[in-house]
């Protein structure tokens, strides 16, 4: 029996997966180094290759063990954890990684602003030093799950006298700070997954800074590449939207027309190939951090999710004309697969916007992967305070 398998069995023996409290089990999983096996020992991992996590997850799934709630804590698991590991101090790693994995602390992301969407490096939220602390003022937007979050990752401007990318710093923020106000932002689905977040005199201790002062862009880029991998993840054949369509096809002969069949097979092939490309990317990533190549996968994922959810409505038109519920709610976590086909169609529209629009993804691929020359940028090399806004 492999060492890894033995570790999993010991975990399962000491914490009965059927009766243990989810948070207790996940905490023990973290302590056993089985949370992210590629993380170092003592930080939820064993310092072995990333791909071996799949072995662990398969064994845990087979035992019916509780899994981290990706819907509620996707920002924490997908983005905050790898960033804290890569750039955070030892103190931050010890304080935050374990409860993050156990999902007893939920995270959100304070990146985008009304004036800094695709141009994320143009964030204007200020962080001004005051003794051992920073005082943060500004407005953030499109913050998924801010209403459930205990902590946030924040990008703020600490220097306006240098060009925009050079004046940013990355912080971890306590969402219970009295200076933080969260207001729901209703989406086309009827729900409010997102929020506007207003920061007024929020105090952040300097020990909650991640990376050096002025290095926030580099740290955030790591976070974003991880987000793009997280968004485009999916291991199984027919996982995601295509699986809902194929299930319908197999169980309901009335939807089978020649035109629909042509379209179905086209999407089946495309989603399967994207799954393989994602798997290939993961195999190549085993050792390192995700690079800009992951932007291409996000592009494919968004295109397919939108097309396949639209196709699903056409496949069953009577059902497609209905909608599950328009009541405004603030959901616990985001799901692309929940509710009815109408919700999925509308929600998928966000896939080509959130985490970087498809147009920005294409710029990243073209410039950073293919090495094409940059577009004309009037703000290049100009101190942030002198850029017209």
């Amino acid at each position, binding site marked *: 029996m492999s060492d890894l398998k033995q570790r999993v069995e010991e975990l399962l023996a000491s914490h009965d997966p059927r009766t243990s409290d989810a948070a207790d089990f996940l905490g023990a999983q973290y302590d056993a180094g089985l949370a992210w096996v590629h993380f170092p020992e003592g930080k939820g991992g064993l310092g072995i290759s990333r791909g071996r996590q799949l072995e662990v997850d398969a064994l845990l799934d087979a035992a019916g063990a509780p899994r981290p709630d990706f819907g509620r804590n996707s920002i924490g698991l997908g983005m905050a954890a790898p960033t804290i590991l890569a750039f955070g101090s030892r103190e931050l790693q010890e304080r935050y990684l374990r409860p993050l994995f156990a999902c007893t602390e939920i995270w959100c992301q304070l990146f985008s602003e009304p004036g800094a969407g695709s141009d994320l490096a143009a964030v204007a939220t200020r962080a001004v030093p005051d003794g051992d602390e920073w005082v943060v003022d500004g407005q953030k937007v499109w913050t998924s799950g801010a209403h459930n979050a205990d902590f946030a990752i924040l990008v703020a401007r600490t220097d306006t006298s240098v060009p925009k990318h050079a004046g940013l710093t990355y912080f971890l923020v306590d969402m219970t700070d009295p200076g933080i106000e969260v207001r729901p932002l209703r989406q086309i689905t009827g729900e409010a997954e997102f929020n506007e977040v207003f920061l007024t005199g929020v105090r952040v201790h300097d020990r909650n800074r991640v990376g050096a002062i002025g290095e926030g862009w580099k740290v955030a880029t790591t976070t974003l590449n991880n987000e793009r991998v997280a968004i485009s993840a999916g291991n199984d054949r027919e996982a995601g939207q295509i699986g809902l369509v*194929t299930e319908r*096809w*197999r169980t309901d*002969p009335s939807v*089978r027309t*020649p035109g629909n*069949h*042509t379209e*179905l*097979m*086209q999407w*089946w*092939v*495309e989603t*399967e*190939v*994207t799954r*393989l*490309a994602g*798997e*290939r*990317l993961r*195999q*190549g990533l085993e050792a390192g951090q995700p690079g800009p*190549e992951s932007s*291409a*996968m996000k*592009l*494919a994922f968004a295109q397919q999710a939108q097309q396949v959810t639209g196709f699903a409505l056409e496949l069953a038109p009577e059902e497609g004309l209905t909608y599950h519920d328009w009541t405004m709610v603030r959901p616990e976590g985001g799901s692309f697969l929940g509710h009815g086909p109408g919700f999925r169609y509308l929600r998928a529209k966000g896939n080509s916007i959130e985490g970087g629009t498809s*147009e920005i*993804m*294409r*710029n990243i*691929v*073209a*410039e950073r*992967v*293919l*090495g*094409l*020359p*940059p*577009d*004309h940028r009037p703000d290049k090399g100009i101190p942030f305070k002198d850029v017209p806004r």
Partner: protein
Amino acid sequence: MTDLLYTDVEESLRSSVRSTLQRSLDEGLPARLYDEPDTDVGALWQALAGQLGLAGLLVPESLGGVEAGPREAAVVLEELGRAVAPVPFLTSAVIATTALLEAGDEQHLPALASGERTAVLVLPWTARRGAWSAVSGSTEPVAGALDADLFLVPTTGEGGVPSLRAYDRGDVEVEAITSLDMTRPLARVTVTGQGSEVASGTRAEVAVDAALAAGAALLASEQLGLAQWCLETTVEYAKTRVQFARPIGSFQAIKHRLADLYLLLVSAQAAARQAAGTLADDDPDQQVSQAVAQAFCSDAAVRAAEEALQLHGGIGMTWEALVHTRLKRAKSDQLALGTPDRHRSDLAVLVDLPAS
């Protein structure tokens, strides 16, 4: 899960093939073959087959081969596809060789493995596994036949029993057909002589199906290599071609198309590797993987060549630019060994998504 990356051995094979091609294949040769189809390209094949041992890549050492496998053959095809090299690797060293291996042949393989002779499976170039019929009389269009020495013909023997027969050059008539892709020219083959039986019954059918399956699985890698050439060449052009006082590659209208093409190729690469890997491992998923790879990579290569042409502007439309040689190969490859539509139909059956 199949290993979708390249091993060090595969990468070193790639660089040998690439440097041999750079040395032995004049860049202008593919276009010249349209005007001078009788140009002797034998030296190129001898360099690849003899010196690098590519002809015997799939053949066991006991029969004089290298005993590598489909993964290595796929890497070779990526390089041959990039260069649209006019050599019979796919038709002889993959398809005909697989047929002979599956048929249990020991007589013909040593001469194929050494590169001394080349062979061809005599079926229309559009045939695919489970979708071909026994040959009687003339067959067209056949790829890889013009310069072949050995002709493997699926026929029907006495009592309607399937039979795979081998014929020497003197036992067949071969007429050239003016082809869309003159770097893999087609021919009409008519059997005139007696020949000898290689396999009969189910074994003959299985051998032909296996040969066509291997061809389809690995054609995807040729398509990938060709598409990569198109992307790289077009990216270079977009970096250097200046209009409106800027490299055209700085315009989003151009760079977004190239980014989409990159995504297409990353995807095609995964599909091609999966097809090669599952074939090498004799994985139960190989038929699905082959259908997926053919359905996807065929269109990807065509799109890459079409995008290359458009983004080169007027230059792309000229005979002088090399883009047209890739477009003609890509479009022909799309029709070869089953069109994407046919592979999607096969796939529908394999994954239980019936048409009606």
